[in-house]
């Protein structure tokens, strides 16, 4: 792999993403965990930009950092769950560590490296200079032959989620 500015930026964003992820699962204080989660999600947004999907990157910031992270922090505060927490891991944490590590190795050795890794036919795959834009995404969403059904179903799903969450979260009245 050649050593250019693109790969350096990729490396930085990967480290941010994975470092934030590690911080999220290991931090004792849940608010710190949420901050780490935000850092990690920023890294993912950066990866989206490198992948020429700036719209998804902006949505990532808007939805995850602007809304989901806020919601998680609200929930942490509402349940006072960051205080009085002596033990953050359950009894099976060592087993979980092994399983997760095994899963990673399995994914890497079993799928990623043999199919897309260096030396395979897919490794030479070069992305095209031109890519579809956000306008194409909009056209695809409302095209009767493409994704108009998922488009409406998404709305339905959100409606259902909102109604359900309100019913569950509200006090008895």
């Amino acid at each position, binding site marked *: *792999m050649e050593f250019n500015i*693109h*790969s350096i930026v*990729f490396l930085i964003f*990967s480290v941010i*993403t*994975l470092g934030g*992820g590690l911080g*999220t*699962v290991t931090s004792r204080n849940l608010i710190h965990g949420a901050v780490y*989660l935000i850092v*990690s999600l920023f890294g*993912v947004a950066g*990866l*989206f930009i490198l*992948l020429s*999907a700036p*719209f*998804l990157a902006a*949505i*990532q910031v808007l*939805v*995850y950092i602007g809304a*989901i992270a806020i*919601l*998680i922090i*609200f*929930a942490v505060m*509402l*349940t006072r*769950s960051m205080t009085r927490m002596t033990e953050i891991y359950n009894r*099976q*944490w060592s*087993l*979980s*560590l092994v399983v*997760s590590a095994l*899963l*990673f190795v399995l*994914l890497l050795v079993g799928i*990623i490296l043999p199919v*897309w890794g*260096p030396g395979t036919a*897919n490794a030479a795959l070069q*992305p*095209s200079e031109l*890519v*579809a834009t956000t306008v*194409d*995404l909009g056209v695809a*969403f409302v095209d009767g032959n*493409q994704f108009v059904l998922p488009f409406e179903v*998404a709305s339905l799903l*959100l409606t*259902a989620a909102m109604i*359900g*969450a*309100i019913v*569950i*979260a509200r006090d008895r009245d």
Partner: protein
Amino acid sequence: MVPLWMYLFVAAALFCIGAYGVFARRNAVAILMGIELMLNAVNINLVAFWRYQTPFVMSGQVFAAFVFVVAAAEAAVGLAIIISIYRNRRSVIVEDVDLLKW
């Protein structure tokens, strides 16, 4: 450009970190955060495959957008359930809420 497998590598690592969080944490909110990490890993994969394999078919981006929706719905309902459990049982430790286990 960075080869595709490096994106897949990062996504797999993030997925496993998230999975570890889900398996090992006791706090329900922390478990939800782990799930968010896993969903993000999936999104990296979707967008990376879209970019490298079919940059002119929008399925990759549409799927990623759908994952956003699912993640949001999951977070909203999941956190609502956690708040509700906390109200009833004064705890967000998942092991304390094993009423259906026996």
